[in-house]
């Protein structure tokens, strides 16, 4: 490897433009004749829309149009879809109500759009929106999912009686019951996984530009997967056929899953741009982000774990209620099922598992994938259970985990997933050593003398990443394949463009993907550029989520590189009058091995394009593409241990130490990996201590601004102590597992386990606010 190859801590190429304000985000784009959209949103959680009077607004300065949900229906624009079909235990398909992009008749959550004002400026659109009179008839609303499933609760959709979307099961119920029947000990736990608002730094935005002459749309949007957006907009929403719709996702300021989905606003912008004959821009503000970006998590779970007399786990029963909000978002159905319950075996040998998941409609913002998506909920549940079990069985929590670890691979769990490799002891050992686990009791005693309650908490997480083998997800109901594509273009002068279907919105692909090229060809990364985020440039792609871009996207690039290198070697061999088998690539040159004969990459590239002297029958050019479909998920895993102190006077938590020992397989750029882990840990700690999207009983959001919704800040989190233990992933040639979500998946349980250890009480819900912790300490 060169200094910029695989494993090098290369400074991110893209940061120069980001930190000097030269990024190009959707809102930075201004088109000639562009109009501005402002949505009129429901202030009610549940209401009939009896009428919309826009006559006064239409007379106001700069107003181009006021468009309503009814017009959307009249123009036969399709409803939003959910792309993953889940079947209930009785064999029936999931039950879904229609989700129109603007509500023609009924609004079902605060913030749902009913109309849009198109005007010459954003402020003129806002002014006119205040003059639009919407006649609502309020209906009873239900925001709490336990209330929503009770008899007599307000009903959201006639298609889903009892507000139930599905009642899904996985695992072997009989075998699990049998295990519990012979259990020596049973550990029970109720947990709530709190609802979160994703809060990417850049709010969502869209610009739609309709070209009437070509009958062609261009959509600039804040998307993690522009090709999927085009596919869905074309195939289901009746916007335009794919060749008449270009989707561009330029620089995007964070996603965390929330920008995977197709939202009403970009659909309406496209439709409106054709209606008004001018480009339409919408940029959401932070309030709209809180009200309309798909939320995350929101589970209520009862779980029981059965142990034999030797403290070996013999069975696990889980029943989870998952809140979907008012509508089924694009991939929402898969999150509490195939992305959650398939990970319930954790790092442990559990011979029998049975899980049931009930999906529930409520009058709240729709819920979908958010960093980790189902896997944080599974990991939190299992790791809280293990901690509870250790306390109940009176054994050391780390040793209880160790004695139940899976140590033989591959390992088939009872819940679909087959773990390919791992070394759970290695990461547990590394984390225990890093935090001086053995020395904790002495530190706890010393803290007690100082009036502080000190606790330690372990979390051994596993996740399924590298999403995903198309055949596997297809068999589980996914409406898309989850391969990735890549194209390598060697220019005539030897510089290289990599086109990828992955999308970078903070992950650093413009650096890491170049490092693979640098590794293989021995050229500096400055000679390589990454092209992504434009359906007219990149042939197709599935985008970035589920820690898939390196494991799947980079492998596709590798496959395309191998094809390109093979052709380049033929050209080099021809030029050097050598055998193709003797050509090796080193330091940007094609060399005849064992000789001093060599031809530089630019000369090979030039030969490919001048085409004067190519091997007989060879096509000119040097450009190859590849599609890569993984054969299995990847399984990043690790141990996080958190040591903290609780102030008994205020209930406030202060971190003493936080260690993370992760196994991500091969690391391309350790610095970027560390950044990903830091961010994930902060989000996990945010969930554990601070963040909670709350509604009152009538469905009014209580936390729709940063004045109420507590985001973690730098002084809320500790400096992290990171390390890596590595087992290479056998499922892809680079041995990569993925690192984007681990921190958010594993951190929450470590924090809550540590606080409950500190205060000596096992029941504590997230977020563990000082008030909640103080009340728990002082509860009878």
């Amino acid at each position, binding site marked *: 490897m060169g200094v910029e190859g695989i494993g090098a801590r290369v400074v991110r190429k893209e940061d120069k433009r980001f930190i000097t304000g030269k990024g190009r985000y959707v809102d930075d784009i201004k088109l000639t004749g562009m109009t501005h959209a402002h949505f009129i949103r429901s202030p009610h959680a549940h209401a009939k829309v009896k009428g919309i009077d826009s006559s006064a607004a239409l007379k106001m300065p700069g107003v181009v149009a006021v468009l309503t949900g009814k017009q959307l229906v009249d123009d036969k624009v399709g409803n939003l879809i959910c792309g993953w079909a889940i079947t209930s235990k009785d064999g029936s398909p999931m039950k879904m109500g229609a989700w129109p992009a603007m509500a023609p008749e009924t609004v079902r959550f605060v913030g749902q759009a009913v109309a849009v004002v198109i005007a010459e400026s954003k402020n003129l659109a806002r002014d006119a929106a205040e003059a639009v009179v919407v006649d609502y008839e309020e209906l009873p609303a239900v925001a709490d999912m336990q209330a929503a499933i009770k008899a007599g609760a307000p009903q959201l959709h006639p298609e889903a009686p009892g507000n139930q979307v599905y009642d899904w099961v996985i695992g072997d119920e009989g075998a699990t019951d049998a295990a519990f029947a012979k259990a020596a000990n049973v550990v029970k736990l109720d947990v709530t996984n709190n609802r979160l608002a994703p809060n990417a730094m850049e709010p969502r935005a869209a610009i739609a530009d309709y070209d009437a002459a070509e009958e062609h749309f261009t959509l600039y949007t804040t998307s993690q997967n522009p090709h999927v957006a085009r596919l869905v907009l074309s195939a289901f929403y009746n916007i335009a056929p794919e060749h008449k719709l270009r989707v561009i996702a330029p620089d995007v300021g964070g996603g965390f899953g929330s920008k995977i989905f197709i939202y009403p606003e970009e659909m309406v912008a496209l439709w409106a741009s054709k209606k008004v004959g001018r480009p339409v821009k919408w940029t959401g503000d932070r309030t709209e982000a809180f009200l309309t970006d798909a939320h995350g998590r929101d589970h209520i779970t009862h779980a029981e774990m059965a142990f034999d007399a030797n403290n070996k786990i013999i069975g696990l029963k889980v029943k989870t209620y998952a809140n979907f909000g008012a509508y089924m978002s694009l991939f929402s159905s898969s999150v509490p099922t195939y992305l959650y319950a398939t990970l319930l075996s954790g790092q442990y040998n559990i011979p029998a598992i049975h899980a049931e998941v009930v999906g529930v409609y409520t009058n709240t913002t729709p819920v979908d994938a958010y960093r980790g998506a189902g896997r944080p909920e599974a990991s939190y549940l299992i790791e809280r259970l293990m901690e509870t079990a250790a306390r109940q069985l009176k054994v050391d929590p780390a040793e209880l985990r160790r004695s139940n670890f899976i140590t033989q691979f591959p390992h088939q769990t009872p819940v679909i997933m087959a773990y390919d490799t791992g070394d759970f002891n290695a990461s547990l050992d590394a984390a225990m050593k890093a935090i001086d686990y053995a020395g904790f009791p002495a530190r706890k005693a010393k803290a007690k003398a100082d009036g502080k309650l000190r606790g330690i908490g372990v979390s051994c997480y596993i996740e399924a990443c590298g999403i995903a083998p198309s055949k596997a997800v297809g068999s589980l109901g996914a409406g898309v394949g989850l391969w990735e594509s890549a194209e390598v273009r060697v220019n005539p002068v030897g510089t290289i463009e990599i086109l990828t279907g992955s999308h970078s919105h903070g992950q650093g692909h413009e650096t890491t993907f170049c490092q693979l090229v640098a590794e293989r060809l021995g050229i500096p990364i400055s000679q390589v550029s990454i092209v992504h985020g434009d359906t007219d440039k990149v042939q197709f792609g599935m985008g970035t989520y589920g820690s898939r871009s390196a494991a799947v996207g980079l492998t596709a690039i590798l496959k395309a590189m191998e094809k390109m290198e093979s052709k380049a070697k033929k050209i080099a061999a021809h030029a050097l009058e050598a055998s193709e088998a003797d050509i090796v690539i080193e330091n940007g040159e094609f060399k005849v091995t064992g000789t001093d004969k060599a031809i530089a990459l630019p000369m090979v590239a030039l030969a490919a394009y001048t085409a004067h002297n190519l091997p007989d029958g060879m096509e000119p050019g040097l450009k190859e593409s590849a599609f890569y479909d993984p054969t299995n998920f990847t399984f990043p895993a690790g141990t996080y241990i958190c040591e903290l102190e609780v102030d008994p*006077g*205020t209930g406030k938590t202060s971190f003493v130490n936080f260690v993370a020992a992760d196994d991500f397989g091969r690391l391309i750029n350790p610095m970027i990996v560390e950044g990903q882990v830091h961010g994930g840990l902060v989000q996990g700690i945010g969930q554990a201590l*601070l963040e*909670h999207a709350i509604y009152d009983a009538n469905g009014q959001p209580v936390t729709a601004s940063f004045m*109420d919704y507590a985001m973690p800040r730098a002084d*809320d989190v500790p400096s992290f102590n990171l390390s890596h233990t590595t087992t290479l992933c056998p499922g892809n040639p680079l041995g990569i597992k993925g690192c984007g979500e681990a921190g958010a998946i594993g951190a929450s349980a470590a924090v809550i386990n540590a606080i409950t250890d500190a205060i000596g009480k096992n029941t504590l819900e997230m977020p563990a*606010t000082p*008030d909640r912790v103080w*009340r728990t300490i002082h509860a009878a």
Partner: protein
Amino acid sequence: MYQTTYHRASSVDEAVSLFGKSSEAKFLAGGQTLLPVMKQRLAAPSDVIDLGKIKELQGVELSGDVLTIKAATTYYDIMTNADVKKAIPAIAYLTSVLGDPAVRYRGTIGGSIANNDPAADFPAALLALGATVKTNKRSISADDFFKGLFTTALEDGEIITAVSFPVPAKAGYEKMRHPASRFALTGVFVAQTKSGEVRVAATGASQSGVMRVPAIEAALKANWSPSAIDNVTISASGLLADIHGTAEYRANLVKVMAQRAVAAAR
């Protein structure tokens, strides 16, 4: 934001005159409350009269046993002022935990007390220290100035020019930060005057805004030490309750923050 007319006043008299000529004017100090409220379209003043650049409203003076902070002095300038640090270090500390750096560079003491947010820090300092609010018309004691949530004794168009603090024998401030907004979830300012009087004020706690805490004052008057408060009971009745703190929690915080403020007082 709705259309508004911005005026930069160069003197207090000019600001008063501009105010008189406008239909619905608002004075702008540091803008840390008014501007977000205007952006949310919850306020729509016809005219905004900026007091921030008026020279006579800037600066700190220490004269004998009185520390005077002019109304448009920013938190940052207060936090770093040598006289403040020497005379009443508890005020320098209070500004150091007020908001974040961006807020501290813009926000002003006059703006804070004129707004009288029930969770703002400065009202507690004024009340506990027995400060006097100087306006373009009169002097108002802190006890008479704060009238409940977002309400003060100021009349329409009246401008705060300065706040005078008698230098105490000892004073301390401790706050539990609101985890989202960083206002005071509850903050307590304790002061012992040079004549031995004890005054304690709590912010962020009461439904009626900043308040004196007589039970703690009595305990500290008898014995100026954190342990003197051990047996004081603070009632949760009338205290604020929200998602970040129940009334019972805030009652506990009044006591705990008071103890820590006494421990930190100098």
